[in-house]
């Protein structure tokens, strides 16, 4: 463990210690040398009206518990004498005019009454006049002199004997120490900040309500994070308390103020404990689960009981138990933090734990002085211990928020990068596939072209060469062979055309190739191809074979049939599966074509078989009909 870590752990403690040392008053300030003290004492139901007698000032162990029985019209009364020489620096200029209003001469100086602890609903009467009801002039919460402050107006005070009466409704009270002093300006200057607190508490309340709404909103969106609900409830209660205490109006009885304050503190501390646990990722089984709920239930039950019991004379013991419970929760929280920071070694964790322990120590101090007979010479110190942990708490929240944002950004960037990489991979894979496909297509087309040329033009030329070798070359034969070669070459070229796989257009192309031949031979040609539906697809190599068969049939008609007309028709036979393309070439010639005898006819049948089709030849005296059937649906 390095030095910096020690520093981190000690820093909140040192800061708080410095603040306490500098600002928390350890001494009873000068009341002008004319302090009047009252010691409250335990009174019973029987003495419902008990005068409180002035006694000496007690600077040491100066408090006593007062249990008041439940009874209406309960009063504490103090008779006190003011010194005669009361025209000092503090006496008012118009003291003469004022003195006429009361019996006896008064110096006209305002006095200040401090009651260490006051709770429940009350009235303060001075010499038969009501000067305060349910709330003090102002609260002063820091230091040993914390408590309710009441200004006793000089014009109501007499020289000599005066009567101060504190009337309660049915609430038992622990009043602590009464202090009465003359030099109130000095005190009020010291308290000026706390006077402003009257208005601050209104703003505090507004801020607390806003914060509570915010935290409640977080809880509603993230129901798993219970601590935000506790924060929201605690801060809401704190807001109610702030709106009720110190504000320049009366919202509720003092009694309720007290209860709400305790409630707010309890829930807030509980929320902090949860948050600590979550932040530290602590899963200790002892405190989690049903124990957790049971503890919270007990806490709330106790608070409710306190509300009910406060009607009775047993307020203090549940309140003290409640305080001790808060203490236990706080100690548990501190333990969790401590363990966590020991493991985590994160600066924020160190600071939080340290600040929490500091606040806890001050809280322990406060609980001890309120709930036990101990006194360390200070008043309530928790106010000095709260700012540092609250600041650190805010810092951690901000840190977590920015961390989450950064994480989200990083994730986004990574995701973007991954998407881009995947896209690139897909693109290159696609490219490779396309190239492969292209290469395959190219190679298969090349093969087909070679085969087609070999089958058609090649055969024709070889046969021509053989004839030449045998010396049987006649001009007519040569012309016919060349013509056939040229026609076949054109079919091959047509079959390479990209529109060549549309049977409609391919048949159109065939017609334009063949029609001139037929016309030149003096025959009439009739084409009926328009009956084919649009959108048929047949691979070009199949169409090429079809055209070769058709060309052969047409050539046969021209050469052998002595016909006048040749008709070529195509139709689609959709009734059978697979669909058939049916092409008929018929003439009105002499017939007599036989598959067995003619090589051309055998050739036609072989070609048809190659593409999965068949050729039917029907030759009679009234003409020849070649019927070619090709399945459309196979391959392609």
């Amino acid at each position: 463990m390095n030095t910096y870590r020690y520093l981190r752990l000690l820093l909140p403690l040192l800061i708080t210690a410095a603040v306490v040392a500098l600002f928390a008053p350890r001494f009873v300030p000068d009341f002008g040398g004319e302090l009047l003290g009252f010691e409250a004492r335990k009174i019973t139901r029987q003495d419902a009206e008990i005068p409180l007698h002035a006694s000496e000032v007690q600077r040491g162990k100066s408090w006593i518990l007062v249990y008041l029985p439940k009874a209406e019209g309960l009063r504490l009364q103090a008779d006190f004498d003011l010194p005669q020489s009361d025209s000092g620096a503090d006496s008012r200029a118009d003291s003469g005019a004022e003195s006429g209003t009361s019996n006896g001469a008064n110096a006209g100086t305002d006095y200040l009454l401090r009651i260490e602890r006051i709770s429940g609903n009350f009235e303060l009467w001075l010499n038969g006049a009501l000067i305060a009801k349910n709330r003090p002039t102002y609260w002063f919460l820091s230091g040993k002199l914390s408590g309710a402050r009441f200004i006793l107006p000089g014009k109501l005070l007499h020289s000599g004997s005066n009567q101060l009466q504190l009337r309660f409704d049915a609430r038992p009270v622990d009043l602590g120490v009464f202090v009465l002093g003359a030099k109130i300006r000095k005190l009020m200057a010291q308290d000026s900040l706390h006077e402003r607190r009257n208005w601050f508490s209104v703003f505090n309340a507004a801020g607390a309500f806003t914060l509570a709404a915010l935290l409640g909103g977080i809880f509603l969106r993230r129901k798993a994070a219970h601590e935000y609900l506790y924060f929201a409830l605690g801060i809401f209660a704190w807001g109610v308390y702030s709106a009720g205490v110190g504000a320049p109006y009366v919202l509720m009885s003092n009694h309720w103020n007290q209860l709400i304050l305790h409630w707010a503190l309890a829930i807030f501390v509980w929320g902090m404990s949860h948050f600590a646990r979550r932040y530290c990722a602590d899963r200790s089984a002892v405190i989690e689960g049903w124990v957790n709920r049971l503890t919270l239930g007990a806490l709330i039950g106790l608070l409710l009981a306190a509300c009910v019991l406060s009607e009775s004379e047993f307020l203090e013991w549940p309140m003290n138990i409640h305080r001790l419970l808060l203490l236990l929760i706080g100690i548990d929280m501190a333990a969790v933090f401590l363990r966590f920071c020991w493991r985590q070694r994160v600066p924020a964790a160190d600071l939080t734990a340290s600040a929490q322990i500091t606040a806890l120590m001050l809280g322990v101090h406060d609980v001890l002085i309120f709930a036990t007979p101990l006194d360390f010479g200070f008043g309530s110190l928790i106010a000095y211990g709260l700012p540092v942990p609250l600041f650190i708490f805010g810092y951690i929240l901000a840190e977590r928020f920015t961390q989450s944002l950064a994480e989200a950004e990083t994730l986004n960037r990574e995701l973007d990068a991954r998407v881009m990489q995947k896209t690139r991979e897909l693109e290159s894979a696609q490219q490779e596939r396309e190239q492969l496909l292209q290469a395959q297509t190219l190679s298969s087309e090349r093969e087909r072209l070679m085969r087609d040329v070999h089958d058609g033009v090649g055969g024709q030329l070889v046969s021509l060469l053989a004839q030449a070798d045998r010396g049987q070359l006649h001009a007519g034969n040569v012309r016919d062979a060349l013509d056939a070669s040229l026609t076949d070459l054109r079919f091959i070229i047509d079959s390479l055309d990209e529109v060549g796989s549309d049977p409609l257009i391919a048949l159109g192309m065939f017609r334009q190739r063949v029609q001139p031949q037929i016309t030149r031979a003096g025959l009439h040609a009739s084409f009926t191809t328009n009956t084919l539906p649009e959108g048929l697809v047949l691979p070009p190599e199949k169409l090429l074979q079809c055209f070769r068969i058709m060309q052969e049939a047409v050539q046969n008609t021209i050469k052998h049939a002595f016909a006048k007309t040749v008709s070529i028709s195509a139709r689609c036979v959709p009734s059978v599966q697979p669909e058939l393309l049916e092409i008929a070439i018929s003439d009105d010639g002499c017939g007599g074509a036989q598959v067995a005898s003619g090589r051309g006819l055998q050739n036609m049948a072989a070609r048809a078989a190659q593409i999965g089709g068949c050729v039917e030849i029907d030759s009679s005296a009234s003409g020849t009909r070649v019927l070619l059937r090709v399945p459309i649906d196979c391959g392609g």
Partner: protein
Amino acid sequence: MSIKTLLLEDESETRKWFEARLAECVRVRLVASVGTIAAARRAITSFAPELLILDLKLPDGNAIELIREVQLRTPVPEIMVVSVFGDEKSVLGAIEAGAQSYILKDANAEEMRKAIDQLLDGGAPISASIAGHVLKRFRATAGQLAITPVESLSERELQTLKLIARGMSYEEVGAALSLRYHTIASYVKQIYRKLEVHSRMQAVERARGMGLIDRG
């Protein structure tokens, strides 16, 4: 009033054959017969021929470039492309460059005369394959180019193209659509012109896509 004609053909036998055929045609007068694009350019400048009969593949390049060039002349000469085997894709390229007619290298005298007559009478030849390609060309770019109705194919032209693509002759198309022969022929010529405009627009669009010309 014979038409001044230029013949561009690098193969001497074929050129002689064409010269002989053209000599038989009374409507045309051969003013120059050349074998290279460079010579053709010179001849076009000096003779201003009204009809060009061009082979596409020449020793000094492809005549498509020449076809594009002469589109800038006034008046634009009629252009007939000589095609071997009807390799229609190159014919289609020539049509897109501005040619209006084509003739097969092995055409006989009658076919040659008919083709020239057809061209001079405002018609144009078309084969099933070319019609199929033209159809495909217009379909592929449908909706992609900002074509005005004038530049896109009319319903009648589309029907004509479809029938021709099925191998029907002008006469048959005319019978099917109840149109006169000359109307069909002029439709085809119109379609070629639209195809040329179309391909020019496509080129412009492509250049815009590549950022070579500003949009709008």
